[in-house]
């Protein structure tokens, strides 16, 4: 028994220290772009929390590359009034507690001027309050659900901004365009059981009510469903004019295939979940109508420059996640310049609020009073493997 006591005591103390001794010996280093040393002013550090592992790892590498490209461009053009930008990227592992740890590291150890991310809304629900309490500006770059900016569940969230077009703005535009062009009277919504899908469901229902379209049925699938034929067969029985997919890209692809097979000629309306490059290779992608925050076809100079620079650096096509993280970094840099003192967080916040029609790949970019993104919504469909405006 005595041996057990000593073993118990020693391991218990080590249990407290293991995270400590573990942490310090190999402090997590970001893969920040090597800022050119010897800059007269100290570097300005920006934190990016993004899912490189876990369920949402498919947002990367685009989400990281978009921001890295912007930092490189800004530094080459003289940085922030001479000071260089340094981007520190941490993997939030698609998990709430790791997202919180990444945010705490940016704030406590890296002493960043601002933070971008995290990728998933469910992680943001835990990470954003940490930044809000410490008074550090955050720009959400891929959270499109409810309760991220403006009226947040965790109380005041005035330090939180959003560069990723919220579903509340994108979906109504899409529904309006689809209803008018297709003369919709009755639709059926197929939705998943995650936070994103359920937010979308609420927004779609309100949008259709506003446009006088009846939602004949709401059919729920779960993350464990493998085959979507039964759902579309069930929807078909209601004789809708169109099917609405309140889902992420994977299930949406299967819904597109089933609708093409079982309900030829009917379109599939979707939210931001459908806005993924992977769907473009789906043979039935042409059926979808989706409100996106970014149109590859937009001819704004800021967008064409972005696409060519991205292809030059990463020799692959950028997607919406890259465009949004790139835009967020441009908006942040612009605000840092205008703030006069990048380390004064309140000044940076005020400068961010004053962002007005900044040219970005997403178009003329401003923040609303609620710190949400104000930008045109591009209602798109797909043709020959590319997103094209929905006429």
């Amino acid at each position: 028994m005595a041996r057990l006591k000593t073993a118990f005591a020693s391991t218990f103390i080590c249990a407290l220290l293991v995270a400590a001794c573990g942490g310090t010996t190999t402090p997590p280093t970001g893969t920040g772009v090597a800022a050119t040393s010897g800059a007269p002013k100290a570097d300005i550090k920006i934190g990016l929390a993004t899912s490189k592992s876990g369920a949402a790892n498919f947002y990367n590498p685009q989400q990281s590359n978009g921001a890295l490209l912007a930092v490189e461009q800004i530094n080459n053009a003289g940085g922030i009034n001479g000071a260089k930008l340094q981007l520190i990227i941490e993997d939030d592992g698609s998990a709430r507690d790791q997202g919180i740890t990444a945010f705490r590291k940016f704030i406590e150890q890296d002493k960043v001027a601002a933070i971008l991310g995290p990728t998933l809304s469910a992680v943001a629900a835990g990470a954003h309050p940490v930044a809000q309490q410490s008074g550090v500006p955050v720009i959400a770059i891929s959270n499109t659900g409810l309760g991220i900016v403006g009226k947040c569940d965790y109380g005041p969230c005035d330090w939180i901004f959003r560069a990723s077009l919220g579903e509340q703005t994108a979906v109504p535009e899409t529904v309006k365009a689809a209803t008018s062009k297709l003369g919709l009277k009755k639709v059926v919504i197929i939705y998943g059981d995650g936070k994103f899908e359920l937010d979308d469901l609420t927004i779609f229902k309100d949008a259709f009510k506003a446009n006088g379209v009846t939602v004949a049925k709401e059919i729920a699938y779960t993350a464990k469903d493998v085959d979507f034929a039964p759902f579309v067969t069930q929807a078909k029985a209601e004789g809708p004019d169109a099917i609405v997919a309140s889902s992420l890209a994977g299930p949406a692809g299967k819904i597109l295939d089933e609708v093409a097979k079982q309900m030829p000629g009917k379109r599939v309306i979707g939210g931001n979940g459908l806005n993924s490059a992977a769907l473009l290779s789906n043979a039935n992608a042409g059926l979808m109508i989706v409100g996106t925050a970014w149109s590859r076809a937009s001819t704004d100079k800021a967008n064409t420059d972005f696409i060519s620079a991205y292809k030059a650096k990463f020799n692959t096509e950028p997607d919406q996640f890259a465009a949004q993280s790139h835009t967020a970094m441009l908006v942040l840099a612009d605000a840092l310049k205008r703030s006069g003192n990048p380390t004064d967080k309140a000044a940076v916040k005020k400068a961010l609020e004053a962002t007005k029609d900044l040219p970005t790949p997403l178009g003329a970019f401003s923040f609303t009073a609620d710190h949400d993104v104000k930008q045109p919504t591009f209602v798109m469909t797909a043709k020959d493997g590319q997103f094209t405006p929905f006429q």
Partner: protein
Amino acid sequence: METLLEFFRTYATAIAVIGISALLALSVWLTLYAGQLTLGNAAFMGVGAYVSALLGRHLDTPFPLALLSGALAAAVIAVPLGVTVFRLRGVYLAIATLAFGEIVRVILLATPITGKGQGLNGIPPKTELWHIYLSLAVVAYVLWRVQGSTVGRAWAALREDELASASQGIDVRRFKLASFVIGALIAGWAGGLSAHLTFSIDPSDFGFSKAVQILVFAVVGGIPNVLGPIVGAVVFTALPEILRPLKDYRDIFQGLILLGVIVFLPRGLVTFLDVRRTRKLERIGAADVA
């Protein structure tokens, strides 16, 4: 000194999660020690989390009372479940408790008050580190002392041979139920602590993958004594943070380490402390868990 303080504030959440994982591992260890393979403790954690968070939000219940109510709610649910699955053992019990966990998750998804799939957000972060580590110390100490008591020996007997245990005067039903319900109580308490740590909870936090994760902590840590689950939880919760520099290859190394540990120390990390006894156990092929 400053950097240590900074370090501590950065990893406060990670250190807290380690403590909560250790509590959860103890809750599963207790049931495993009595020979019951359960995958239901994640659901009990969920019940504890939601009950304590909702009490705090809607009835302004003081934090300790909310935690206690959450733990008791989990224990109250565990009683009927324990009685119904009493006859099942081994893999059958695992799958039954797993099914129960999924049913709890579906109920959470369906009841509006819990915020359904969108989760319960804006939970005040009342949990502090000392809450967690005091609870862990108390629970670990009590279980360690109980292990050497008549109750502890009765549980060990159940693990070895239920029929022979009955003939020694052990009320098999009552003792199995006790380990199951106390396990649920601890898991519920840990759930309450966890809910008030990360501002938000949603049903997917308490699903199948969480149940398996908790089981891994207890089994990889080792069943022989209370130290096993704690060591298992600490090592495999700290691992993602420690392996962070490995970036994209982090998960691979985590898998390799898990494989290495379970293959070389199948009865758990803690058995490394007493290799002689483990060798003997292997020779006897003692019936550990089903």
